[in-house]
């Protein structure tokens, strides 16, 4: 029988180009904010989500490296890597450590430092999320694989770039109110559809920025959680699934089977349906992934997300509200940390202390994607 697991503390750094901070400094800042937020309880294990430390910092052995630098002591610590889905996969692992009864207080942290290297080097590091022999070998970048998905979707469902651009407009609007966000300025549809082409049909303002950042959440068993707070946030459902890394081999290019499966697991564990969700943080590394996520999570019919969005759905005030943080698009996307940001943001929405767009919520959901729909986690939290 699995034990109940609670989120008892969260800590975030602003997402930014932190030229004055490295991987370890970012980690320590978020970690200690989370520890203080949890009433100074010390974690007894650390799970770190990170994608590119091996490529960009020449640093492996990240668990020990960060536990030591952060002053957490000689606790069990290790890195979980699942490309941009590393943070969600770390959360899934941390949840399992507490749910199993093995460890009663676990810190799940995500940290990523992308801006030390030139952007061509960073892009090459991120392209390792694709199939090295059959995608990256041919010159595919991560952006161009998403451009393929976007082009296919636009053609199949007759969706225009203007309609998709509403996603970026909404994300920038939400981020403009989030003090942790990287891109705190508004954009218009006109600016989105005329921004620089990166990989046609995908343009600069369809994409998330290159970001640095760290996020940490402290997970605890019921005994511990009840000592810290009368109203801890409960994790009521988790799910995880994978799909073919070689996207051409997928059953379908417009559906993320891994998200459908992960969501099914999480909803069934929580014994609720998509209708019960008040707030979501979905993985919009590119606008198209945000729209496909809302469809695959069951909030809107396949092919209809852009239309619904342009009719006002998913904006603040609607149920569910999507990405009040500004999403990866505008809060920023410190890749391996993103999944942990999402969970922390949902926890803050449920507690009522998120410092940006507030969504009065009982139940919230976070979904994090690694690769172009390859490794996907879903977490459902309840107040």
């Amino acid at each position, binding site marked *: 029988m699995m034990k109940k697991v609670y989120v008892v503390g969260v800590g975030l750094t602003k997402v930014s180009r932190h030229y004055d901070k490295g991987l370890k400094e970012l980690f320590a800042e978020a970690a200690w904010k989370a520890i203080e937020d949890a009433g100074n309880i010390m974690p007894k294990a650390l799970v770190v989500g990170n994608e590119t430390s091996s490529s960009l910092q020449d640093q492996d052995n990240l668990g020990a490296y960060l536990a030591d630098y952060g002053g957490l002591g000689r606790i069990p610590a290790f890195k979980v890597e699942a490309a941009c889905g590393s943070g969600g996969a770390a959360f899934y692992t941390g949840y399992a450590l507490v749910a199993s009864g093995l460890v009663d207080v676990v810190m799940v942290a995500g940290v990523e430092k992308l801006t030390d290297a030139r952007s*061509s080097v960073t*892009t*090459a590091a991120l*392209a390792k999320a694709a199939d*090295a*022999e*059959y*995608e990256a*070998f*041919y*010159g*595919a*970048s991560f952006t*161009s*694989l998403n*451009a*393929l*998905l976007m*082009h*296919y979707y636009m*053609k199949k469902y007759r969706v225009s770039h203007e309609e998709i651009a509403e996603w970026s407009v909404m994300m920038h609007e939400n981020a403009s109110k989030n003090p942790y966000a990287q891109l705190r300025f508004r954009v218009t549809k006109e600016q989105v559809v005329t921004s620089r*082409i*990166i*990989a*046609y*049909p*995908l343009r600069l303002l369809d994409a998330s920025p290159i970001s640095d950042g760290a996020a940490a959440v402290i997970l605890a068993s019921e005994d511990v959680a009840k000592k810290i707070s009368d109203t801890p946030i409960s994790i009521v459902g988790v799910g995880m699934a994978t799909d073919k890394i*070689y*996207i*051409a*081999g997928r059953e379908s*290019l417009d559906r993320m089977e891994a998200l459908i499966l992960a969501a099914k697991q999480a909803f069934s564990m929580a014994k609720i349906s998509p209708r019960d969700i008040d707030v979501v943080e979905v993985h919009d590394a590119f606008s198209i992934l945000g729209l496909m996520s809302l469809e695959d999570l069951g909030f809107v019919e396949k092919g209809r997300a852009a239309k619904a969005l342009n009719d006002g759905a998913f904006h603040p005030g609607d149920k569910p509200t999507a990405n009040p943080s500004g999403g990866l698009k505008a809060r920023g996307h410190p890749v391996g940390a993103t999944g942990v940001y999402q969970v922390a943001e949902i926890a803050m929405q449920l507690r009522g202390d998120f410092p940006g767009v507030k969504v009065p919520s009982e139940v919230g959901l976070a979904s994090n994607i690694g690769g172009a729909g390859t490794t996907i986690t879903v977490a459902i939290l309840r107040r």
Partner: protein
Amino acid sequence: MYPARIWREKKARYRLVGVKCKKCGAIYYPPRPVCEKCRSRELEEVELPRRGKLISYAILHDPPIGYRDQAPLIIGIIELENGIRVFAPLTDVDEKDLKIGMEVEAVLRRINRKEEYGVIPYALKFRPIMI
């Protein structure tokens, strides 16, 4: 990419060799050891049709290092005549003539300028069918 790694993938890359499940007939590209549909581990090599149609593409104006002399690099997903989909670059085509649904065929081409280990990386690209 190390020479041994290029050598191991040569059949799939040079001749579009995939595998076919001996039990249920499912076909896969690139080759894999287990049939996804029936979990059989008895698969045999099969050469895939070299013609198909383009089902999605993207145009990279700023391709990765090693591919920049090809800018704009066009990559696509091609559905071969037997329904199997492959990922490949496109060649011998002007941006303005690209169209989702167009008929294309495989040709052997140099893939990039990354020759740090002395091997010129070749593989198949797809071009519009010349009639």
